[in-house]
């Protein structure tokens, strides 16, 4: 357990020292600072636009952070021959991988919380200038942030999985982006092929689409921006299912990652 905790702390410190991430977070804060000015472009929904811009900026930055960290963690350890020396210690590959994942997850959560706090201040300023008919639903904004954090932790597990099977940085990087885009649109495609259009397609194609739908992560469920922006109700049962799905998906993917990582030969 101490070894695991040490790996998590070490990963977290390693991320905190990363200058690329410093630059990304500085740009994110700048983007959030620009929100009040950009929100005034709206004719009728300045407050709503300030929430939209803030959540979009946070989501975009978390995506960048996640993809970079998820794709680069194992690759960097191999490149710098760090892994070779660590694995000589009495530490299993699974514990090492889980430590890396948890460190990355903690950093994603920290980013979400820090950027969310900055966004809260900015949203308050914007809405004070141009009050909306719709009250600010802070609970739903918090929920949307939490869902975003869960989504990007899931994506980090995808990145780690790809980095355990690849020797290159580029494959996990672009594969993670690909899975992110596919996972964001998979629900729409699933509903499309399940409807009238699916009847006109071959049964094999429909089955293939559905298989891919169940295989890749469904990120559409984590998009709670409409409730956060417009105050539309959220179903508590759906939330429970969504977060359970995230936990289970991550757990399964980490199990598979652990298996492939344990069998891998290192130079």
């Amino acid at each position: 357990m101490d070894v695991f905790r040490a790996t998590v702390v070490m990963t977290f410190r390693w991320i905190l020292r990363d200058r690329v991430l410093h630059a990304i977070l500085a740009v994110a804060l700048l983007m959030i600072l620009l929100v009040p000015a950009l929100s005034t472009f709206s004719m009728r929904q300045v407050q709503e636009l300030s929430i939209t811009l803030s959540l979009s900026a946070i989501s975009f930055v978390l995506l960048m952070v996640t993809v970079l960290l998820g794709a680069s963690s194992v690759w960097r350890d191999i490149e710098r021959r760090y892994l070779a020396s660590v694995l000589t210690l009495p530490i299993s590959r699974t514990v090492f991988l889980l430590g890396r994942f948890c460190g990355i997850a903690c950093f994603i959560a920290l980013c979400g919380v820090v950027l969310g706090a900055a966004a809260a201040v900015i949203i308050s300023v914007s809405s004070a200038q141009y009050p909306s008919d719709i009250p600010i639903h802070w609970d739903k904004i918090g929920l949307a942030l939490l869902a975003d954090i869960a989504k990007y932790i899931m994506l980090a597990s995808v990145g780690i999985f790809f980095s355990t099977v690849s020797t290159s940085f580029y494959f996990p990087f672009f594969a993670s982006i690909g899975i992110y885009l596919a996972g964001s649109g998979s629900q729409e495609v699933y509903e499309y092929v399940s409807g009238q259009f699916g009847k006109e397609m071959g049964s094999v194609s429909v089955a293939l689409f559905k298989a891919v739908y169940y295989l890749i992560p469904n990120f559409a469920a984590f998009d709670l921006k409409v409730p956060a922006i417009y105050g539309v109700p959220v179903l508590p049962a759906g939330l429970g299912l969504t977060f359970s799905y995230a936990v289970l998906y991550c757990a399964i993917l980490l199990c598979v990652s652990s298996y492939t990582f344990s069998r891998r030969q290192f130079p």
Partner: protein
Amino acid sequence: MTRGLILGALLLLYALVVVPFTTYMRQRPVALKLGYTPAGEALRLVASDQRYLLAQLAVDRVLFYFGSLFTKDGHRVSTPPEYFNMFATMQSALKLDPYNMDAYYFTEAAFTWELKRIREVNNMLDYGMKYRTWDAQLPFYAGFNAAYFSKDYRTASLYMQKAAELSGNPLYTTLASRYFYEAGQSALGITFLRAMEQSAKDAKVKKIYQVRRKALEGITVISDALNRFREARHTLPPDLKTLVREGFLSRIPEDPYGGTFYLDSKGKVVSSSKLAGKQ
């Protein structure tokens, strides 16, 4: 030495290009091109959770483009606007974010008065009402379009009824009952006003509904007598006093707005107050 010569030559070339370039920038057409926006359904697939941002960007692009069509003194430039493209862009934006109020507001403002695309605009507003279920503005816009542009008072009254029920705003209630009356649906208007009157908390608002209901009740009583007269005599009476004199009506009801009820040239019961009196 050579490097200095190359740099000097490059600076000279730059000076030669930058002058006509600045002239071109100053003289370029005022209206910017709106450009092509992919269909909303396709964009949704790739936009992930940035679709709300993309929707707003599409709306803002149309706004900037529309703004470029007018000179500073408010006159339109001669370039024909890309109206179809503007509408398609708004449709794409609303597919990405069906809650975006800017898109509905702009569509209502730009495509009704100048282009009279009332059916298309109201279809878009109907689409918005499925999502913005709390918002009275959308049925208000649709009701206004139906009444003012299409003269479809029955549809207008139903939209205004929806707006009134959502907001509790007396203005919408007054408009709804007026459109019910114009559509010959006074009985429906009375029922609606009675419901609004009961739910109103403010005494003044309650009074407004009450007066409007009494006016519609007066019109209904006269219209019923008029129908009985028409069935019995197969003609219209010359005035309302004839209805009283011949026993079809006990007395001409009072117009609570202070006017007098009379028959217009088409045989419709109207009031000299136009049901918008001193209240």
